[in-house]
């Protein structure tokens, strides 16, 4: 068993009938790492997780988790894994406490023996421990699911879109918890469609249509974006988008929040020329500023390139 690699994926492909969910995916996750899988809906994130957690068998390639093969040695892997599916998958007709006890017992342990690990998460739920889990709020459900996935002190934690549909405050709390778990030495693979969460990972894999576009630290991913980036704002965003797209030399135009991110095909765009052009087009309150690229800019860029190829 290798000491530093917890998950090793070699040329893995998986299809469902006609649909190629994953194409020739390879990467490795190191011990103690917080590894993010970032991609839009339908990119193949859940399929990737189900392959790692032994629920699916790859059509091609091999996966090794904690030194065991996911096809032949799944029995050794399962007790060491903590898995939180994207959809809330606990028993809604059991209480908070009953769910936790059930999953502890199924893994041959008890709530008491691993209480320290889940305490920071679970103590918020304790006032509601006799409530049916189906009656919890979204954020609470997610904390309970995390507690249940952790109750047997897994070596590797797999979280499939844990923050989808959760409010901003709970999302922040959740990521704080993940950092804390990392301190405990648990390796974590987490998927998310939210780009802002990518910055919180040690390394991220950008995935699109079943292929990995890039794997690197969030900073390096952003540094891969070399073109000068302008942020443009005007009172009518729809017209602004149309105008920018028809501007000669325009390359990428993406609305992000209040600014539209804009690049040109060759070299540096001249803000003054652009401003004049936009005002000519009848746009008002045009503001243009130079922006630092974020991870989503790089992602859009990569996606765009991948599609052109």
């Amino acid at each position, binding site marked *: 068993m290798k000491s530093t690699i917890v998950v090793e994926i070699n040329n893995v492909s998986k299809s469902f009938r006609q649909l190629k969910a994953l194409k020739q995916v390879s990467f490795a996750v190191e011990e103690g790492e917080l590894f993010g899988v970032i991609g839009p809906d339908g990119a193949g994130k859940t399929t990737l997780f189900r392959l790692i957690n*032994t629920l699916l*068998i790859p059509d091609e390639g091999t996966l090794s988790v904690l030194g065991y093969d996911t096809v032949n040695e799944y*029995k050794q892997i*399962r007790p060491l894994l903590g898995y939180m*599916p994207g959809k809330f*998958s606990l028993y809604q007709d059991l209480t908070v406490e009953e769910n936790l006890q059930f999953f502890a*017992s*199924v*893994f041959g342990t008890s709530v008491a023996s691993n209480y320290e690990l889940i305490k920071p998460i679970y103590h918020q739920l304790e006032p509601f421990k006799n409530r049916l889990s189906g009656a919890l709020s979204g954020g609470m459900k997610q904390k309970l699911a995390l507690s249940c996935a952790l109750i047997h002190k897994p070596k590797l934690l797999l979280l499939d879109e844990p923050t989808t549909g959760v409010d901003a405050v709970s999302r922040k709390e959740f990521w704080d918890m993940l950092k804390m778990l990392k301190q405990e030495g648990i390796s974590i693979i987490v998927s998310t469609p939210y780009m802002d969460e990518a910055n919180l990972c040690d390394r991220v894999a950008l995935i699109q249509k079943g292929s990995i576009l890039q794997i690197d630290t969030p900073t390096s991913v952003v540094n891969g974006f070399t073109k000068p980036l302008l942020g443009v704002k005007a009172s009518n965003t729809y017209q602004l988008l149309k105008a920018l797209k028809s501007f000669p030399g325009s390359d990428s135009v993406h609305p992000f929040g209040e600014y539209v991110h804009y690049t040109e095909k060759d070299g540096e765009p001249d803000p003054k020329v652009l401003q004049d052009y936009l005002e000519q087009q009848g746009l008002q309150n045009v503001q243009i500023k130079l922006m630092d690229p974020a991870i989503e800019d790089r992602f859009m860029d990569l996606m765009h390139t991948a599609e052109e190829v």
Partner: protein
Amino acid sequence: MKIIRVLLQKEFLQIFRNKSMLPILFVMPVVQLLVLSFAATYELKEVDVALIDNDQSALSREVMSRFQATGYFNLELETFHYAEAMMAMDQGEVSLILEIPSGFQTRVREGRVADLQLVIDAVDGSTAGLIQSYSTSILKDLNAEQMRKIQMESYSPQVQKVKSIQVIPQNWYNPDLDYITFMVPGILVVLVSMIGLFLSGMNIVREQEIGTIEQLNVTPIRKYQFMIGKLLPFWVIGMIDLLIGLILARYGFNIPFLGSLITVLIVAGIFLITIQSLGLLISTITHTQQQAMFIAWFLMVIFILMGGLFTPIESMPMWAQNLTYINPVAYFIKIMRMVLLKGAGWPEIQFMVYGITAMGSALLLISINKYKKTVA
């Protein structure tokens, strides 16, 4: 062992928390027995009769009063026109037309053949059959009496000969031909089948539908542990329901328990596993509770209709009779009736028990095999 205990604990917790299903589980045997046993009866009640009495004699009046005296026939219409009686039958007002020709009494008195017409509404074949057999037996009794009378009056040796063969039927195992005695053991089988077929299979599909199965599948729970955790709770509930039903049958309906109760329970245990395995198989090929429910109902209706509960298997066409060899419900209904009403023991029922066991083993093996694929 510990994991199985935890799984069972979880299942029972969920079952007993289900406030809408739990009462039904235990009220069901009572309601089914009461409703089906009392309502689904083959006994004749209140047949409306149209009488065409062209004879207007003492004997023709005697015929009608005999019909009325049984309490099953009710004189609804008296007429001299056949067309009027027929119209009443067309409109559903009467189910039987009794036509007595003129000269009826005279012919009987003279010891000649006397005809009499019965016209029966046969839209419902079984009721028509019943009306016919009731009527025939009334007329037979009357006929015998008349013969005796004539014989006494005339001392005719010819008539004496006619009297010499007499059939006295005796009904074994159910001497009074009590319908309830016949139905209750069969209804108990339906009850057990419903619990076995619907509940355990449905339970697994539910875990798939809600998504909890995904969380369960990544735990170290073994397949056999999961299966036992799913089958055993409803096996226990099925057996408890059967016991409630048997107690009701014995003390509420006074059904004779000639055979051994232990035999019934052992066979019921095997039967439940068989039918639960079928439910399990359904759950492996369906993805929603709706699909599973639909297939289960489809099979259940066939099992019951072809199981000999309402109509005897012996009167089905040959291909249908052959189908009952793979109908576990048919076997169990037959075993229940044989053991409870006839006092049959192991030698008489063993081959049917082998049949159920074979089906159960096959179904269980197939469904376990199938289940693996859906998880992997």
